[in-house]
């Protein structure tokens, strides 16, 4: 859900330039023991009026948790900037989970105004009801029931399968949860012959997986790739791309994801040479 593009009927801290002073930030920690998911938000509020509202119980910190995969949507309230951990059974959440952080009114405020409002508001006073939003801190995201290793491993992103043509160039199919690298019948049967042999892992990675991954990373830059944004492969690659600034180009990025396949390939090929 997107909250920062909405037109609220009163100024909201954190939305556009409604306020000229103050901030609401949240430091988020999420962990799981497999049975429970523990969420610890630490709210950092710098705005005198809203701090006063929190202290008097007029306003409340809110963590709004939404998992589209399991239709889970709940709010958790606290008066403390560091609250008790939020505990959610792991079986309630699956895949991407969004957490949005707010300050909401817990009681009616008849004449709400603040010296920190944008001067454009002049002396306007606003009527605030319970549940109205005072401040928005933005969104956090995590993946439930997926280990970081599971999300990062190449097998979590890509399959190899056989197309129905005898001879044709390999191509990618993006419609599944994983990207499928389609090989012709002849290529696929040769691939099956060597895939179980560790001696050829480097060759498979360099000749099949690496170009496929480069292609997928380029595809990610194309607008049409957004049609696949709910798929696991899209989320994993997008997150990797957004977080890893070390290598800006798909060629080096792909090599980094699959842990330097060219090096592995040469190593295996040269070792074979040495034995001959």
């Amino acid at each position, binding site marked *: *859900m997107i909250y920062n593009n*909405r*037109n*609220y*009927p009163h100024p909201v801290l954190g939305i556009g330039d409604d306020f000229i002073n103050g901030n609401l930030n949240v430091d988020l920690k999420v962990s799981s023991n497999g049975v429970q998911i523990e969420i610890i938000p630490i709210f950092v509020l710098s705005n005198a009026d809203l701090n006063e509202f929190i202290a008097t119980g007029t306003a*409340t910190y*809110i963590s*709004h948790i*939404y998992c*589209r*995969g*399991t*239709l*889970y*949507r*709940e*709010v958790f*309230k606290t008066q403390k900037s560091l609250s008790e951990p939020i505990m959610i059974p*792991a*079986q*309630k*959440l*699956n*895949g*991407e989970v969004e957490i949005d952080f*707010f300050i*909401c009114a817990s009681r009616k405020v008849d004449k709400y105004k603040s010296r920190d409002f944008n001067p454009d508001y002049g002396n306007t006073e606003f009527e605030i*009801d*319970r*549940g*109205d*939003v005072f401040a928005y801190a933005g969104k956090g995201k995590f993946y439930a*029931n997926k280990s970081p290793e599971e999300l990062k491993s190449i097998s979590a992103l890509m*399959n190899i*399968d056989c*197309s*129905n043509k005898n001879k044709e160039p390999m191509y990618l*199919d993006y*419609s*599944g*949860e*994983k990207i*499928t690298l389609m090989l012709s019948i002849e290529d696929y049967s040769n691939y099956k012959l060597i895939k179980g042999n560790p001696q050829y892992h480097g060759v498979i990675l360099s000749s099949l997986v690496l170009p496929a991954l480069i292609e997928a990373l380029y595809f990610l830059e194309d607008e049409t790739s957004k049609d696949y944004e*709910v*798929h696991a492969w899209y989320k994993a690659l997008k997150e990797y791309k957004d977080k890893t600034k070390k290598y800006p180009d798909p060629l080096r990025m792909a090599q980094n994801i699959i842990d330097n396949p060219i090096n592995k390939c040469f190593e295996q090929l040269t070792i074979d040479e040495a034995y001959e």
Partner: protein
Amino acid sequence: MSKQEIKFFSTFYVDKLYRDVAATENYDSYLDKEFVYEEKYAKGPTGIFIDSNLKLNPQRSDLENSIVLYEGLRGLNEVQASDERLWAYLTHVHFWDYMQGRWPIEDSKKPISRIRERYFLRNLNLESITRNGLSRLWWYAHITFDDNKKNKYELTETLLQRQDLVVGITERAIGTNKKIRISLLEYLRENPSIAASENLSRELIKVLNLYGGVKMLPFLEISEIKKILSDLGSSIAA
């Protein structure tokens, strides 16, 4: 009553079935009496059991089938119930007859779209969960089941009285929060004149959705949301 353990199709196999239908445009296998699948891709153990004789009847209403399926799969948790591998197995194997009766391919103007939408659960979101031919039935009951009511499926009845209500509630964000869902369905139940009118109920859902755009409705109590609904209901009925 004999129980059998449900299997899951592997992710690889689900992707393959899905891709094959679109790539080859060949859906002959979806017209057969039995769906022939590759046994090696049906994996277990899953720890999910179902009565071997449990059947759904395509001639019966979604409400009846929803209750039968939910009762038959009461042990399922939300993570399992959002897993495509489970529903793809059930649509293609255990409930194949029901699927063929309820979502016949031969009658469809867009057979490939129907197969992809009703036999699979591609994207983990509100819309696809309530489109898959079986998961929709389970989720309708799950999100409305109320153990505290004499008739535990009272709100399921309200939800499923008309398809536009189902779409309006389950495919919008307001339908994802239990308090909003209960408030809305109880309000409709208590106000049959609005519930019976497609225009009024659609307008009510629309304005509630707009209202929820700027107010944190899940923060409120059910009584407060129902008061808002009452005000909105009065204004649209005026």
